[in-house]
């Protein structure tokens, strides 16, 4: 397939981003056209809906989408596997277990209080994410460096453990808690408030700016770890830094919006198909594409069942899974075509 140049794709995505933002302000249970200048009560209430509900929500979708997509790029590069995603190192399952713990056990202790606009459930999710990543990392770290293969296996084991904890909490939960747990796990952007968006913007935006500096190292890492070392990359240090950064941003993202599947897996894939695997283009383009995708998915989730709302995790998975399967199918067809090369 003919590749698009990196610059062209950045330009296209930069153009699409504001359009999608505008779209997600218009679309919802009620279509609200922007720039209405009348002062009727209807127009005033519409303006409030846009300013206080839709805008922070769309911005949150953009920030989280960009974060998950970039985290996916980093993991796929680090594990040299296009099927890797952040949940591999146990972040997501740890966050789920942490959230369930707080929902079931913590409800009695803290009630529904918030700390600086962030609920205790979010804090629990973040602690769970951090804990499980730390465990996975400790299991894979040896004196001679971190083994990526061991890390993969440790990630599976810790994810299973966190899953068991999660099931246990669901088991002892009452009906109301159970609904809360399952809603949290499907992910939602409905809790986006200006306060949370500002938090997310500062933390995630700041951390995301750090990622492009790993582009060259990841490019070399795709050749293999020892090849990267021979190209002058301090592989062991970079591995640790990337894992910590990814755990941090995904932990924050998941604790703010719950688990949102497939964005981190599919976005880097799509971008790679268009511009190739060079991380100097892949990281910024994936960030933009992830932001656009999640804003669109969120708009869908509000529109499809209006006035109700589909959990966004359902939308991303429902859109992502068929896309992913078609991708696999195409890749297989290509391999057969190439005579097994």
């Amino acid at each position, binding site marked *: 397939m003919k590749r698009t140049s990196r610059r062209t794709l950045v330009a296209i995505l930069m153009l699409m981003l504001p359009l999608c933002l505008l779209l997600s302000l218009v679309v919802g249970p009620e279509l609200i056209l922007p720039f209405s200048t009348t002062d009727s009560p209807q127009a005033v209430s519409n303006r409030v809906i846009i300013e206080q509900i839709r805008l922070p929500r769309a911005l949150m979708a953009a920030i989280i989408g960009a974060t998950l997509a970039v985290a996916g790029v980093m993991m796929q590069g680090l594990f040299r596997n*296009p099927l890797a995603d952040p949940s591999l190192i146990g972040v997501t399952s740890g966050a789920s277990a942490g959230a369930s713990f707080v929902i079931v056990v913590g409800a009695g202790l803290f009630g529904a209080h918030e700390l600086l606009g962030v609920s205790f459930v979010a804090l629990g999710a973040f602690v769970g994410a951090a804990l499980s990543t730390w465990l996975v990392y400790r299991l894979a770290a040896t004196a001679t460096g971190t083994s990526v293969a061991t890390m993969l296996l440790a990630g599976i084991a810790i994810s299973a453990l966190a899953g068991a904890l999660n099931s246990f909490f669901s088991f002892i939960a009452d009906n109301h808690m159970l609904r809360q747990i399952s809603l949290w796990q499907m992910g939602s952007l409905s809790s986006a408030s200006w306060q949370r968006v500002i938090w997310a913007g500062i933390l995630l935006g700041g951390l995301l700016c750090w990622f492009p500096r790993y582009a*060259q190292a990841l490019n070399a890492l*795709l050749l*293999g770890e020892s090849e990267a070392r021979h190209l002058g990359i301090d592989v062991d240090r970079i591995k640790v830094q990337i894992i910590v950064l990814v755990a941090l941003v995904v932990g924050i993202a998941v604790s703010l919006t719950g688990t949102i599947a497939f964005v981190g897996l599919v976005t880097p894939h799509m971008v790679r198909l268009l511009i190739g*695997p060079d991380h100097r283009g892949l990281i910024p383009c994936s960030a933009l594409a992830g932001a656009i995708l999640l804003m669109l998915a969120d708009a869908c989730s509000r529109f499809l069942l209006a006035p109700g709302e589909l959990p966004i995790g359902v939308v991303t998975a429902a859109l992502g899974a068929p896309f992913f399967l078609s991708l696999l199918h195409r890749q297989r067809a290509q391999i057969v075509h190439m005579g097994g*090369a």
Partner: protein
Amino acid sequence: MLTLDHIDLLAGDVPILRGVNLQVAAAEVVVVLGPNGAGKSSLLKVASGELQPDAGRVMFNGHSLGELTPAQKALHMAVLPQQSLLTFPYTVEEVVQLGRTPHDSGRQLDAVIVEQALRATDVHFLHQQTYTHLSGGEKQRVQLARVLAQVWQQEDDWSRLVILDEPTSALDYAHQQLVVHLLRERSQQGCGVLTAMHDLNLAAQCADKLVLMCCGEVRAVGSPDEVLQEDLLQEVFQVRFHRVIHPQSGRPWLVN
């Protein structure tokens, strides 16, 4: 330029290398020979710093290899492993460009070097192709181009070295000859070459110095003429060779 001094290497309790000494001078082609499991690859890995020896030391340009940072080392030493693991759809040109990662030599010079390396290994006609779609031999030549591009020209007063683990294993006859000539040419440009090979005649053609290994030890070191002795080869390889002189090159040629 590169000196291995009394190297011992263990895998668990099993000795892989025992008391190995080796010198590679600047602009010298050194070929390591030996049967499977003789320790050729391990020797190359110790020389490249990928494996830490259990005893002995490795000096590179007058410095202990372990004390150099990866970035310092990569400016002067490039390594081609036996197999490539690359499964991402880079173009051939991008793969070779990765060879310039350690250098800060600017896009223009890098492009010139990359093109020269692509032509030298006869893969320039593939430069826009996707690496993962190539044949095994083509991939091997692309990786060779990447490694050569890394040490294509002199950076400072340090000598350069390429370490190649069986660079001709997947190549046809024409390209085996091409690589032999290329290695000779690179060494004339001042780049030392340390390579493992299986083909005795190819080794005899390109080597200044041969290192014959057996069971983790160096059995013989010297010019092709000194090392390629019928009795010695029979002892190491368990095969009877007959030695003649190549009518054109005047170097030893082995027939079995």
